């Protein structure tokens, strides 16, 4: 039975957001990270099997279409590379895993509808109905690798996205059903355009919320909008980004945070600053006020790290020194929701969000892979299961079944 717009879900849905060595920016420097394996299928397959042991709905791979850069077009050599082709990754994982859903982002701007329809339907068939497509329009950095260098403006990109998704759905309909009907459609984005697109097509929505109230408002709006378009409210799952910081005592949590802070090497920190502000920080003294006047002329949007010019400027506090800002940046564990404490505390947070109708689950990151995913699977998942808010085993074999979505329309 489909609930109303405000009805909370009964059970959590969990996606695992696969970022090479972990969700923390310096996780590649963690002593437990085996860097030589980071680009091999074994690393991804082992992680997927670990997430499947924890009964996650899906593994998710994001996509970027340009190398990550610091200032002046230099590549950001201090950060790990999270940009192998995500569809090649899920196709390879289709043969290496069972049960768990496999989702990947691909651009509606830089792939033709026929390519998108073919690739996701192929992975869906190879995996027995476990494929998901996160439909993205791509950031502006991609433009320089695809033609004239001029990335289409928002309006044009979004107009095209509607057209592309309609065409892909029509091609899938022609192809005949996969084991789950057709791949699950996923979308990330919180803009008004995003809401319209999500309520039309989205079946899982990756979101970013600051508070549970934001989540409730967004989820209620989205479900109402979907219903207004003739879809059941439960045809769309809202999954905010989430990073748990597990520690059995306050002291342990503090130590873990301090440890990750220390992983952010000064060279990496300067690299992150130069990426964010497109400015060379290598000779900027840290005890001087932030040189905003010098930075503004060359400041750029950096969609790859979720930033607009406005957000970057607003982020700097009045009179703040470079060092003070850098320290805040280095101590930032995640830009997404986070909860800290023991398994019970993490489970409390997740359950509260579910039961208050602020979300249907989470798209979860782990500070380091596999350590923190392993700890979550071993310690938090059993608590969620014993409280009856998370499955103890898969009830179906497709991603659509895991997400408890209605049959594909």
């Amino acid at each position, binding site marked *: 039975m489909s609930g109303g717009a405000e009805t909370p879900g009964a059970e959590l849905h969990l996606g695992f957001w696969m970022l090479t060595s972990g969700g923390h920016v310096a996780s590649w420097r963690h002593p437990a990270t085996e860097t030589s394996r980071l680009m091999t299928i074994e690393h991804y397959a082992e992680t997927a099997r670990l997430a499947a042991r924890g009964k996650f709905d899906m593994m998710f791979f994001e996509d970027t279409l340009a190398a990550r850069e610091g200032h002046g077009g230099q590549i950001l050599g201090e950060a790990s590379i999270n940009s192998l082709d995500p569809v090649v990754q899920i196709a390879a994982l289709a043969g290496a895993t069972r049960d768990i859903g496999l989702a990947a982002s691909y651009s509606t701007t830089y792939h033709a509808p026929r390519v998108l329809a073919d690739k996701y339907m192929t992975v*869906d068939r190879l995996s027995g109905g476990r494929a998901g497509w996160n439909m993205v329009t791509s950031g502006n950095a991609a433009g320089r690798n695809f033609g004239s260098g001029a990335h289409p403006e928002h309006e044009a990109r979004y107009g095209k996205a509607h057209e592309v998704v309609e065409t892909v759905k029509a091609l899938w309909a022609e192809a005949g059903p996969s084991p789950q009907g057709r791949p699950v459609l996923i979308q990330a984005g919180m803009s008004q355009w995003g809401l319209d697109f999500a309520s039309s097509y989205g079946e899982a929505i990756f979101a970013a919320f600051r508070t549970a109230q934001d989540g409730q408002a967004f989820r209620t709006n989205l479900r109402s909008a979907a219903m207004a378009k003739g879809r059941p409210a439960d045809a769309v799952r809202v999954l905010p980004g989430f990073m748990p910081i597990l520690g059995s005592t306050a002291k342990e949590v503090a130590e873990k945070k301090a440890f990750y802070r220390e992983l952010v090497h000064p060279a990496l920190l300067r690299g992150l600053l130069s990426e964010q502000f497109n400015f060379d920080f290598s000779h900027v003294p840290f005890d001087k006020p932030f040189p905003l006047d010098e930075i503004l002329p060359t400041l750029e949007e950096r969609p790859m790290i979720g930033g607009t010019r406005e957000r970057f400027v607003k982020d700097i506090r009045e009179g703040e020194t470079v060092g003070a800002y850098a320290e805040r940046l280095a101590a930032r564990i995640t830009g997404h929701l986070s909860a800290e404490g023991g398994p019970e505390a993490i489970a409390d947070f997740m359950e509260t969000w579910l039961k208050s109708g602020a979300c249907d689950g989470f798209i979860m990151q782990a500070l380091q892979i596999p350590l923190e995913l392993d700890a979550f699977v071993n310690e938090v998942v059993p608590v969620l299961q014993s409280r009856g808010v998370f499955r103890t085993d898969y009830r179906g074999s497709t991603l659509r079944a895991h997400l408890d979505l209605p049959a594909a329309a």
Partner: protein
Amino acid sequence: MILGFRPGPLGEGAAAAAASGADFVYLPAARPDAAVGADALSVAACLMSLTPDIGLAAEISTAWQPFNVARALASFDLLSRGRCGWSPRPLDGESADAPRFREHLEVVFKLFDSWDDDALVFDKANAVFADRAKVRRIRHAGAYFTVDGPLNAPRPPQGHPVLIQPLGDATAATDVALAPFGVERPASAAGLVVMEADGADAPERLKAAFAAGACDGFLVGGEIDAALSLLGVMGEGRAVADGGDFRARLGLARPGIRYGAAA
């Protein structure tokens, strides 16, 4: 003797072919008028988890942008530790010496070469994941493609994934030329010549052609059980190179950086 196998559209028969000694599988791209849902590259990628060691080659339409092609192939080669092969397919009605097709290939190779082999450093102590001095923009601005680069994936472990092309389209860069059975081997062929065979063919005929130096091996297609059975007969008593990547298995040298000076 090199032995290849053409699996079914979703990889049917590939694991059995690997078990009976095939060196590689080859998946042709679906034609534009074919049914949706059999993407050759995705099927080949799936096979990296379902088969041990053998080379995995897919035909790829060059309607796909060169940046996408280069990144998918580099990713495939990295994930599989060097098992990737590919065949670029011209657009319908386009020949392999059409300027657009040539430029597409050039951009793909420039992107493979936008990272030096030793650009990945993994130096945890000094926080150097990649040495930025060993990564270059390609700044390609041609008649058909404008691609700035660099690729956002490191250089493939094989340098360049194995390049397979029809004999008639082969150039100096071609690693494996595919020829119909019985075609005379041109003296100019730089790479290996592999002849297309069908499961229904008589093994004696193929063995005789190989012994006469007409080719370096066969790509066996047709009905799957017949093809597997022919593979088994052809592979009997054959020494197979163990370990190593697809290039090593074919006895091909690893290409160095060809476009390093482009930046």
